[in-house]
Structures are given as structure tokens and as C-alpha cells.
């Protein structure tokens, strides 16, 4: 238990109870986020990345529910200094255990953990000015007057690089360009300088150049606020550019987690390897988009037994991979992977 951990997800299971049947969107995810670190959560679209994120904020709505696992959040109790973690004393709460609509949870949302959503066009209310929507967060978590809140909103808008924020603050989202909207969204998330920022595909809706700017901005702000970022994306290029660590998800499980260098240079899990192989060399972030791996994503109604990846796995071991789902294995270099190939009890070496 290293003390600089900010968030620890243990065996998280989030399921959707649909009339068609049970959907195990997140199926035992383990994930660690250190203070100040940027963790990329990658995977083909819909492998459960977003659901994981929502689970962290306890915002999974009917008919979905977090059914098992812990989400340990080590919050630093606010000290005079604030922001800086060192010396401040740390309190651990299990978000998964909190009442989704309770006070405690609300206190965490936005204040401790903030989130940036995919398409600002639909994720921002068109009925309210961006100012209003930012101030709402501020007023919720700080004991300040309308005026102060407004000032703060303008500051933050400046920070995220929105020119003459003083006017823009009174504008409606649909009056802004896509990039500006996303900046506004970021501003909203940062308004209460959270310790963890979850960015769910923050750049997908944007064109390349804006993408770059937005990412720039985020990293810049991360340094300034000293927060951790959980960057959800399916764009390995982005990950390579921005993240310290990477967690690869497949079918609701984190199949491999480690430092960017480790993952990119010596991927341990066949899936990760497949992913990387599918990237053309010298890939710009644009070219970095995933090209599908041979084999198709299993049909939900005959979910493979054993390792979920084995039907598509080039190196799968008969009578093993198709029998039991591999456990999570901590490798010596500090990364973890879920693949029989790395089970010490198996003689196999990669």
C-alpha cells in the first residue's frame, strides 16, 4: 500500500440488469492511480471504460448498478496549505460503499473528483450560460457569494485559455465553437480544483489541432493544480503523448497495467501486443486510431469461458485459457497483467 496512491479500484463489478439479460459491463476491474499521475485507460470503444469512470463517481444509473468491489479514495483532508498532499493527513473512503445520492458522495463529486465528458454539445445544458454552469459547481462546494463565484468562473475560463472570458461567461454553449466548449467544460471540471480529474474521451469530438491544444492545456493545468488524471481514450497516440501509466481494458477487465514505457516497449498481454501491432509505425496521433484486430468481438450471448480474449488470442493454451479466467499477476517490474502466459506456475515465458 504505497502512501502516494490516490485512487484504488479493487475487483469492481458494474452490471446492467436489462430485460435481454444481465450485462456485466465492468467485470472485476483493478486499477491504481497515484497522486499527480496521468493514467490512460485504453481499449476498444465500449469495453467498459466509461462505465468504470461512472462507477468511480457513483453515477451509474438504473438499470445499472455497482455490484461488487471497492473504490478506495485516499483524500487529503484540507489543510491550511491545501492542494499539496505531503504532511497533510490522509483519509480513505470507499466510494462504492457510499449512498449514490448521499451528502458524502455529492461532497466528493466535483470537489475531489471532477469529470470531463465526451461531447460538450450535449453534456452542457443549452438552457444555461456556461458561467451559470461553472458557478453552480463553485457555489456548491465553496462558501462564497455569487460575485466571488462569478469572479472565480471568469478566472478559470481565462486559465483554460478562453479569450475575453468576462463576456464569454454569459454566453450559452451553442454560441461557442467546439474547442471553446470543451475548454469551458474543462474549466467547469477544474473550478473546484479537484484532486482527480476523469477525462472521458475529451478530444474525440474535436479536430486534430484542437485536440492537441486541449491535451496541452490539460497537462499544463495538471502541473499547476497537482492533480491526477484518469484519461479515458481509445487513442493510443494520445496516451503515448500524455500519460505516465496505462491500463488496457478488454471486455470489462483491465488486462494489463503499467508505465507507458513498459506497455509500449514490451507489452505483456497478447491483446496489448495485438493493439500495438495494429498501429502503423511512426504513427501520428491521427493514424494511431485502432485498426480492428482479426477475429470479432464475442457476441454477448455466447461469452467465451475462461480468458475472454482467448478466441482471438494467437498464443492461447488449450484446456487452460478456454477453461479458467487468468488471475491478475503482479510482474516484477511493478506492472500487472491478466494472462496465463505470465503465471509463474506455468513454465511458459514470453
Amino acid at each position: 500500500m504505497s502512501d502516494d496512491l490516490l485512487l484504488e479500484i479493487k475487483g469492481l463489478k458494474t452490471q446492467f440488469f436489462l430485460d435481454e439479460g444481465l450485462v456485466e459491463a465492468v467485470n472485476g476491474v483493478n486499477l491504481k492511480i497515484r497522486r499527480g499521475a496521468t493514467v490512460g485507460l485504453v481499449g476498444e470503444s465500449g469495453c467498459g471504460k466509461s462505465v468504470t469512470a461512472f462507477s468511480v463517481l457513483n453515477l451509474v444509473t438504473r438499470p445499472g448498478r455497482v455490484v461488487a468491489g471497492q473504490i478506495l479514495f485516499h483524500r487529503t483532508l484540507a489543510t491550511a496549505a491545501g492542494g499539496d498532499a505531503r504532511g497533510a493527513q490522509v483519509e480513505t473512503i470507499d466510494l462504492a460503499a457510499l449512498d449514490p445520492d448521499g451528502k458524502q458522495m455529492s461532497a466528493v463529486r466535483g470537489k475531489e473528483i471532477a469529470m470531463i465528458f465526451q461531447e460538450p454539445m450535449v453534456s452542457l445544458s443549452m438552457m444555461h450560460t456556461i458561467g451559470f454552469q461553472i458557478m453552480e459547481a463553485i457555489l456548491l462546494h465553496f462558501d462564497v457569494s455569487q460575485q466571488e463565484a462569478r469572479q472565480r468562473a471568469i478566472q478559470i475560463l481565462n486559465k483554460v485559455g478562453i479569450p475575453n472570458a468576462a463576456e464569454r461567461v454569459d454566453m450559452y454553449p451553442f454560441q461557442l465553437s467546439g474547442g471553446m466548449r470543451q475548454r469551458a467544460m474543462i474549466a467547469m471540471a477544474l473550478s473546484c480544483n479537484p484532486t482527480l480529474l476523469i477525462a472521458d474521451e475529451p478530444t474525440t469530438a474535436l479536430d486534430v489541432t484542437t485536440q492537441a491544444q486541449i491535451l496541452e492545456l490539460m497537462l499544463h493545468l495538471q502541473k499547476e493544480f497537482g492533480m491526477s488524471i484518469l484519461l479515458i481514450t481509445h487513442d493510443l497516440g494520445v496516451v503515448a503523448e500524455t500519460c505516465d501509466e496505462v491500463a488496457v481494458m478488454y471486455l470489462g477487465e483491465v488486462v494489463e497495467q503499467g508505465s507507458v514505457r513498459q506497455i509500449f516497449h514490451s507489452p505483456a498481454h497478447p491483446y496489448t501486443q495485438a493493439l500495438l501491432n495494429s498501429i502503423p509505425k511512426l504513427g501520428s496521433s491521427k493514424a494511431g486510431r485502432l485498426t480492428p484486430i482479426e477475429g470479432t468481438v464475442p457476441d454477448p450471448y455466447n461469452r467465451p469461458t475462461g480468458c475472454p480474449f482467448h478466441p482471438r488470442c494467437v498464443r492461447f493454451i488449450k484446456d487452460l485459457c478456454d477453461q479458467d479466467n487468468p488471475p491478475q499477476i503482479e510482474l516484477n517490474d511493478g506492472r500487472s497483467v491478466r494472462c496465463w502466459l505470465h503465471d509463474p506456475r506455468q513454465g511458459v515465458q514470453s
Partner: protein
Amino acid sequence: MTAVSVPTPTAPRRGLPQGSQEKKTRVFVASQGTLIWWRFRKHKPALISAVVLILIYLVVLFAEFFAPFPQENYSVKYTYAPPQTLQIFLNGPNGLEFRPHVLGYKSVLNQESLKRVFTLDPEQVVPVQFFAQGEPYLLMGFIPATTHLLGPTAKEDPMYLLGADRLGRDVFSRMVYGTRISMTIGLVGVTISLLLGILLGGISGFFGGWVDIAIQRTIEFIISIPSIPLWLGLSAALPSDWSPIQVYFAITLILSLRGWTGLARVVRGRFLSLREEEFVMAAALDGSSELRLIFLHMLPSFMSHIIATVTLAIPEMILAETSLSFLGLGLRAPAVSWGVLLQEAQNVRSVVQAPWLLVPAVGVILAVLTFNFLGDGLRDAADPYSR
């Protein structure tokens, strides 16, 4: 030292880790129609209503068959006769036997109060049967037939399952015939208003500018003429030598004349706000023609609202027809609609002494209820965010 963390329990054999996603993808490939159908199935009340409505419309088609008697059959002996109860079994000499029947009446006319007092007479057993032979009729207007779903074995015997009206006419039969007009008046009317509403509302909201202004003025102008005077004026102006059928169509027209405006305004409102939204922009940039834009891209986006409005509109039409008849502006005898029947029952004497004359109201309520539940189901089914 490799620490092996506790293996997470393997997922149950069934189920689908990517399910939620999978489902979506499956949904994406599904056409709008099938999609709606899937959701609709779940809405039990709507499903039931749909069935009921189908039945009702069967009655509309084959009224002559479902009605035991012709609507004008009168009888001096049975004015204001109360309803009989249809009994399936008869306690005959050799025990309980299957002999559907009703009990005949004993009646005395109180000369002082001018009230005919009826008592069901256990002595008189009126045998009735399914598929009884009764008055001949033309099924759907051209197939000659004499069979009625249910009727007295001897066709001159009294059978008043829902009682008789002031002329001793069978309320049940009349109600069945009434179904025909009442259940179609709504459809015709709403179809007209729907087309007008969406088209004009769409155009108005989409193009904006002077087109918008023009259409808005027209609408504003049409709705600002209060309906009752309009009805009074127009239906009084109907040529008095028109047949009930002509009058009937004229009235649907009069009803739908204002019907479309409301919808048009709603559609327009949505369009105005939709115009900004990106997918429309995108489509426009793809150079898809404007009407295409309206109907393929913009309409679906608020299907739900339209459906809600329409399904509420049909019953409104049905009710409007009853109101018109109440004002004596609607259809008139010999034409029979629920409105006409209710209008005949709309007096204290009937309510107190012949409440069965109000039965057509049940028809109205049933129709309106089912239509609403149906529309409700459709609405939820078409609602893109119903999950």
C-alpha cells in the same frame, strides 16, 4: 518475488461483459421500426390497448354482424326497458343445461306517472343464440347476410342486453352502429391535421424568414377564432339538403380545421431549436435536400412529442364530436354516433330513470383510454432516451 493477487472469481457462464455495448451495436443495426417494436412490446397496457382497438375497428367494419338488430328497430312495448342479463345456463327439468337465454319482461304503464314499470319475468325464457338468424343486411355494404353474432332465436323476441331507449330501440345495437362514425371521425380528422401540422410547422420552423411569418400569421389567425362560434357558424352554414354522410365529412373537416395548428406550433418550436444542432448542420452540409432533411433527420428527433400530440388528438376529436352533437350542431338522427346517443341521454330524466342510456359514454371512455395508452406506449417506444 511475485505476489499473486487473489484471482477474481470467474464470471458466470452466461452473461456478456460487453453486453451493454453489444446491445447498443445490435440496436444500431436494427431499423427504427423494429427498434420501436421491441420497446413497444414491453409496454403491456399499450399492447392490450392495441388489441382492444383492433377489436373496436372490427366492430366498425362488421357493425351489422355484431349488432343484434338494425339501429332503427323500434317497439311500442319496450320503451325504456331496462337491460336484461344474458344467462348461459338454464336450470331445466333435467338439471342445469346449456341454453343461453334472457328473461322476458312484464310491464305496466302507470297512467298517472306515464312510467312503464318493467319487471323481468322468470316465467318467460327468451332463448337466444350465437350466430342467430336475424334481419338481413349487407355486410360491408355488398355481401348479403342474415347472421348476427348474438340474437334471439326468434327474431321478434325482446333482447335488450343494454336496455332500450325511448322508442324501444336496442341501445346495444345502436351503440355498435355508433362506433362506426365515432371511431372513424377521429382518424380522418387527425390524419388531416397531422399532415398539415407537420408539413406547415416543419416548413415554417425550418425555413424561418417570411415563410415562417406568413404561416405563423395564418395559424395565429385560425386559432384566434374561438372554436364554438366557428362550429356554430360553419355547421349552420352547411347546406341543409346534405345527407348525414356529407354532414359527417364536413364536420370532420371543421374539426381538423383547427386541429393542425397546435401541432404545427409545436413542430415549429422544436425545429427552431433544432436548426442549430450539429447533426442537422452536418446533414445540410452533406447537401441533403431540405424536405429530406426535415423528414429524415429532424422529425425522428422529436417523434415522441408528435406521437404524444397525435394520440391525444384522436380522442379529442371523438370528444369534440360528442360536444358538437351536444350543441345540436353535430350529426343528427337517423345518423347514429356516440355523440348523438349521448345527446339523447343528456337529460335528468334519463340519468335518473334510464341510466343505461349513458352506456355509450363507456364506449367513448374505452376508446379514448385505449388510444391514449397506445399512444403512450408508442411515445415511450419512440423516445430515444427511454433507457
